[in-house]
């Protein structure tokens, strides 16, 4: 299969991107300044991320659709206000996570942002579950551009007036060059920021305008270090079919009201795990010193017994040290528990820590 290119491919090339194949797309891993600079620029100023490879699934329908989607997602969708977003997951009957996603209530139905590597399979699963009752469009005519960092609001507002009034995890339709763009105040870096759904033909123009206002392109490499510092999960690494939201320590994202009713796919397991506890759970892990423990690194307790595995690990440029997440047996998941990480045959001391590694600064109220 030929690798796909996003609408910003030429701009990435012009900006000296190093490309990598990701989920079937040619994506920029970094630009000339490198991952550390791009990461810091996002934290201190504003970074632009091409996330057009992600799926933008529009599902149209009314009351019926809400009922049908509530059988799938552990959310209180009937109380979700227009233009408000929630983080959720697509689970199987064993509560295994097939994808994590952001779902937003829009006028005609819902917009769901899906991971690139999962989107086609998600579409198939959802189509089957919804019995083709509702119109579903996995829109390939729109790009998705994220702008993240403390200066994002000011910069984007100069181009699209009014975005600065959006609250965190909410969105709205705006106009750019007379084109309808849907902008949400959200992101995956631990910074204030926005995601812009825009017709493909206008993605390049918008991005170049953001660059002209002082923002810079940031690649997938820094996106990974940013999200890991922010304690956010990456599907296929920290989340997969063999892990449930309770094990992933994401129970905050499950509606309490929906748990009490227990009428969604996977609810039996979720309720059981919430009642009886889980045997493994996702935790933050801080290695002592500078050693980097990457994905698949084995975790041992103080008696040298294997208790888990790292699922994401890198060097955090803002933390200025190594950071990691992984799953450990529940009894070793308490903060400050001493553990050992096996890297290149040697055991290195580390401790369980709370997430995030880097304190987030999301904007809660408007006009900031």
């Amino acid at each position: 299969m030929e690798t796909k290119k996003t609408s910003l491919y030429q701009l990435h090339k012009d900006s000296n991107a190093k490309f990598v194949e990701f989920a079937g797309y040619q994506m920029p891993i970094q630009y000339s300044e490198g991952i550390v600079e791009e990461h810091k620029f996002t934290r201190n100023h504003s970074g632009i991320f091409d996330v057009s490879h992600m799926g933008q699934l529009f599902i149209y329908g009314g009351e019926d659709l809400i009922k049908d989607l509530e059988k799938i997602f552990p959310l209180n969708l009937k109380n979700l206000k227009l233009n408000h977003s929630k983080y959720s997951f697509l689970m199987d009957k064993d509560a295994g996570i097939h994808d994590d996603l952001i779902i937003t209530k829009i006028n005609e139905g819902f917009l769901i942002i899906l991971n690139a590597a999962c989107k086609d399979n998600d579409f198939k699963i959802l189509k089957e579950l919804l019995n083709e009752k509702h119109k579903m469009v996995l829109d390939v005519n729109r790009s998705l551009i994220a702008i993240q960092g403390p200066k994002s609001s000011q910069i984007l507002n100069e181009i699209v007036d009014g975005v600065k009034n959006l609250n965190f995890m909410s969105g709205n339709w705006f106009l750019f060059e007379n084109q309808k763009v849907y902008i949400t105040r959200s992101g995956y870096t631990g910074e204030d920021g926005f995601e812009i759904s825009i017709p493909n033909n206008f993605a390049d123009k918008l991005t170049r305008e953001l660059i002209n206002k002082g923002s810079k392109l940031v690649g997938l490499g820094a996106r990974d270090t940013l999200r890991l510092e922010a304690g956010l999960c990456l599907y296929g690494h920290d989340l997969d079919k063999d892990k449930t939201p309770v094990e992933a320590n994401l129970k905050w994202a499950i509606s309490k009201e929906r748990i009490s009713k227990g009428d969604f796919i996977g609810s039996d397991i979720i309720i059981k795990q919430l009642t009886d506890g889980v045997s493994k759970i996702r935790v933050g892990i801080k290695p002592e010193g500078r050693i980097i423990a990457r994905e698949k690194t084995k975790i041992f307790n103080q008696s040298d017994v294997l208790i888990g595995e790292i699922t994401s690990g890198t060097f955090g440029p803002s933390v200025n040290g190594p950071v990691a997440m992984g799953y450990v047996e529940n009894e070793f998941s308490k903060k400050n528990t001493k553990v050992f990480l096996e890297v290149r045959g040697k055991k290195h001391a580390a401790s369980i820590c709370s997430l995030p590694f880097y304190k987030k600064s999301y904007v809660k109220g408007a006009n900031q």
Partner: protein
Amino acid sequence: MSEVKYSKEHEWIKLEGEVATIGITKHATEMLGDIVFAELPEKGSSVEKDGTAGVVESTKAASDVYTPVSGEIVDTNQAIVDDPSKINQDPENSAWFFKLKIKDPSEMDTLMNKDDYDKFAKETSA
């Protein structure tokens, strides 16, 4: 003046008397990206030609560092362990990795000179 030689694994080596100083090339650092971790061999340990003699890690991945010649490690550069970004800044000079007492000087003959290495680096990265 001693000539600097280069290996196919992108190390440089400068032999002065019987002590060789070894580091990674600028080209290597450009391929690796921002280096955020470095591990060096222990002083007094013996290393074999083309064997691993350290590790560098970028934010993305870990890569082994190989020794282009055999010998006994007589010194290591703690400065690059404390601040690995020095490797990106000055790889072929102050950010050397280790010094070793060379076992067999004829191993130097198997390595490339600057022109050959530059050509090799250009061809392999194309």
